[in-house]
């Protein structure tokens, strides 16, 4: 059962990443997340939004939507874009040993989300809505 819903819809530009983080901080402040857990949520959503700005929209300004659903034992955050979409199953998870040895750059965003959140799930429908769901349990 969803107890509370928060939504923000704003221009997808890197200057708004801070707006999004601040929105989450103030929306989540009454929940009993530790600061550490809150930081995990902030960073994961930031990564999802940075991907939308860069990959979904290629830095062309468009809208990004973030929905926060608070339930009794978890929060779910949906980051939605109307951009070009992609096939998440084709994205390889970087092996960090090799990654670091070969001085790779980029490609860490989804890995970070997966490491920090309890669930990460993409629902890609190019031409309509692409969405990533990020879940964290209390």
């Amino acid at each position, binding site marked *: 059962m969803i107890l509370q819903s928060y939504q923000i819809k704003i221009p997808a530009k*890197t*200057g708004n*990443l*801070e707006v999004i*983080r601040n929105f989450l901080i103030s929306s989540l402040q009454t929940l009993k997340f530790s600061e*550490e857990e809150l*930081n995990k949520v*902030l*960073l994961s959503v*930031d*990564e999802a939004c*940075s991907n939308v*700005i*860069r990959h979904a929209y290629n830095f062309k300004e468009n809208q990004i939507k973030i929905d926060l659903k608070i339930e009794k034992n978890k929060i779910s955050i949906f980051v939605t874009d109307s951009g070009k979409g992609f096939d998440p199953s084709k994205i390889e998870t970087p092996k*960090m*040993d090799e990654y*670091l040895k070969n*001085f*790779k*750059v*980029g490609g*860490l*965003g989804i*890995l*970070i989300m997966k*490491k*920090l959140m309890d669930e990460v799930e993409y629902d890609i429908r190019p031409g309509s809505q692409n969405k990533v769901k990020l879940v964290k349990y209390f």
Partner: protein
Amino acid sequence: MSGFKIDTKKEESVSVVRISGFLDAHTAHELEAEFQGITSKGDYKILVNFAGLDYISSAGLGVFMGFIELVRENGGDIKMCEMNVKIYKIFDLLGFPNLYEIFDTQAEAIEKFKD
């Protein structure tokens, strides 16, 4: 309002880059430009002081990865110091401490560059 600030000073032969605020996909290019400026002068001993840094995302991490090879090829290094626990946890999550030396104090790090 939070923003991101960089302040670079030469200490002996080391370029000490103090970063503070929020290093994300919006501000990462500022650090990139700073590293570009430093390395293009032929300075490859770079110490990043994280004391004032409140936040880092993968865009910020990418800046370090983008320069480490060049810097090491030129006999230098990017070392780090005074990182708070919050930031260190992100580095640690991805194994970055295997690639970068991270010191508690700036003095230790500068000393290490003399080896």
